[in-house]
């Protein structure tokens, strides 16, 4: 069976987005008050901005909210009642760059892993529809091609938008969840042979621009031998430990569990946290296994390119470049990766 493809003129995108918003929340690229592109929940269909490249704020909040209530409670003397939150509402994430789709795969791997799958995450994931978006031009700072991710690749999406000539988008329907969007796309005409050929051509052009990927296996191997290398001094010395790299990373998922209380009522909540902070690992006794920013900077790189790969066979970096754009100290993960490749050649453990 041929894949269903519909053609949506850019001027009709608000109508499509508006229909998507019927019965589900939609997270999409928008511009904030400062004109910066961010993924945010739409309150009106016109807010979705198709001029955004990679939004500075990633879409991970759709699956891992900044603050997520595990349960609420009420305490009285001798009695406590716990109530779980209502089940998550259906939602769609619209306009994901293929590297952000890969980031969802990383989160899926972590949160579905045994022995204890993360039930709140999986519940939210089950009601989430992923609508990716192809990019015919390479965005600045994005190095996903070096990680083997093609900006036109529609894999792991439920539906996928491909930009076409004459200010139009093609909407590819890829899964049952994608097909469930029918009420939103059925008013738009199916793609003809010419548009199908144009989509195929766009994919071919993108693949032709592929760059030699980084040797991730070599990087992982090398990282095992340079735990005590001087490299970590060079990385951490300019680092101010702000954690922007982690909070803006689409794959960083480390979290804290906190209490929010008012009187005898309260909630136990999951909040974003980062290995870049001193408190992250500090014991109640005061002992801290990662005493300085050096250990913490090293942990972030090791987790992404060694430990994560070890456990899940997938790098915890998708080449979106957000950390490069945000770092106040101008640390550049592309340089760090190249250095790790070369360093292990020059330096024996």
């Amino acid at each position, binding site marked *: 069976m041929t894949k269903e493809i519909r053609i949506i003129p850019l001027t009709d995108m608000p109508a499509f987005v508006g229909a998507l918003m019927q019965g589900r929340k939609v997270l999409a690229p928008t511009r904030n008050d400062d004109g910066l592109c961010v993924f945010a929940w739409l309150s009106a269909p016109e807010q979705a901005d198709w001029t955004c490249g990679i939004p500075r704020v990633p879409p991970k909040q759709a699956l891992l909210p900044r603050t997520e209530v*595990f*349960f609420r*409670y009420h*305490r009285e003397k*001798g*009695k*406590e009642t*716990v109530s*779980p939150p209502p089940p998550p509402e259906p939602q769609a994430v619209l306009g994901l760059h293929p590297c952000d789709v890969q980031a969802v795969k990383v989160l*899926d791997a*972590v*949160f*579905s*892993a045994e*022995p*204890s*799958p*993360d*039930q*709140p995450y*999986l*519940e939210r*994931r*089950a009601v989430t529809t992923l609508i990716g978006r192809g990019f015919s031009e390479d965005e600045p700072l994005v190095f996903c091609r070096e990680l083997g991710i093609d900006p036109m690749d529609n894999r792991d999406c439920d539906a996928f938008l491909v930009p076409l000539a004459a200010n139009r988008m093609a909407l590819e329907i890829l899964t049952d969840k994608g097909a469930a969007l029918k009420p939103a796309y059925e008013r738009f005409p199916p793609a003809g042979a010419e548009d199908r050929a144009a989509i195929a051509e766009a994919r071919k052009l993108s693949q032709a621009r592929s760059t030699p990927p980084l040797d991730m296996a070599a990087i992982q191997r090398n990282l095992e031998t340079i*735990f005590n290398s001087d490299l970590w001094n060079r990385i951490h010395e300019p680092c101010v430990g702000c954690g922007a790299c982690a909070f803006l990373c689409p794959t960083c*998922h*480390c*979290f*804290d*569990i*906190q*209490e929010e*209380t008012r009187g*005898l009522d*309260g909630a*136990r909540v*999951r909040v974003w*946290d980062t*290995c870049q902070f001193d408190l*992250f*690992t*500090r*014991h*109640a*006794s*005061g002992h801290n*296994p*990662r005493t300085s920013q050096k*250990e913490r900077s090293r*942990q972030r790189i*090791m*987790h992404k390119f*060694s*430990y994560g790969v*070890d*456990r899940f066979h997938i790098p915890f970096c998708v080449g979106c470049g957000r950390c490069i754009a945000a770092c106040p100290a101008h640390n550049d993960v592309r340089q760090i990766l190249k250095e790790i490749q070369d360093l292990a050649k020059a330096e024996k453990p």
Partner: protein
Amino acid sequence: MNTDKNTKPNPYIPYPVTIDRVVVENEARDIKTFRLVFQNPEDRRRFDFRVGQFAELSLLGFGESPIGIASSPLDRDYVEFTVKQYPTGVVTTELHNAEPGRPMGLRGPMGNGFPLEKMAGKNIVIISGGFAVTTLRATIRYLLHPDIRSSVKNITVIYGARSPGELCYKDEFAEWSKRKDIAVTLTVDNAAQGWKGRVGFVPAVVADVKPSPLDAVCLICGPPVMLKYTMPELTKLGFKPGDTYLSFEMRMKCGIGKCGRCNIGPKYVCIDGPVFSLAEVSTLPAEY
């Protein structure tokens, strides 16, 4: 992806339990043992643990704290935890103020526990210092159970504390000291009036007692300084790194390998540990 897994229970919601009994363990009164009973008896069966595992003690409004299980799995009616209070510890401080009858929560069991399969049929050497003895107390209780005792050969225990008043589980150790099927040596760092046991640091006592490494598995829990000086003594006696196990402590939150803070290199202490053999530890970066 497979979303069938979302039919599993939410791992972040604790079992409701009630504090049944509180025992002050030491003279400083900052170590107490809490006996918890499950409010729904079927939860005790779900809380199916082995010695050496831990759980998150949950106090609504205060938070959670990961603590080793101090009772034996064969103590079927309750679960016990021995908790040291730290002035900086919000949860441990609130817990130390709690009295029997107070409801609280329990999440777990978590972690791998001691290698019971490997211990079967072996001589068992247990070395501990201070209040790190908790999961080893669970192990001794378990191994001494009439149904279990014959599954291992000799049991040798060396346990030390700063002073006699700081030894935990005093009554139990006194009783075990009288038994023929376990060899217990208690020691304190400084001589004290009325103390009839040994005086000396754990490493020196290990060197003196000379537990045999033959056909033996050694479990060791204690403060870093004790571990540092006891390991060379065990090596001198001939204990192999693959047969010596220790249990790590880490700041933990989720306890199920998600929140990302308790790793030592690629290993998560909460799911791959807390128990590691010395052979495994030697392959990990010294970030603990």
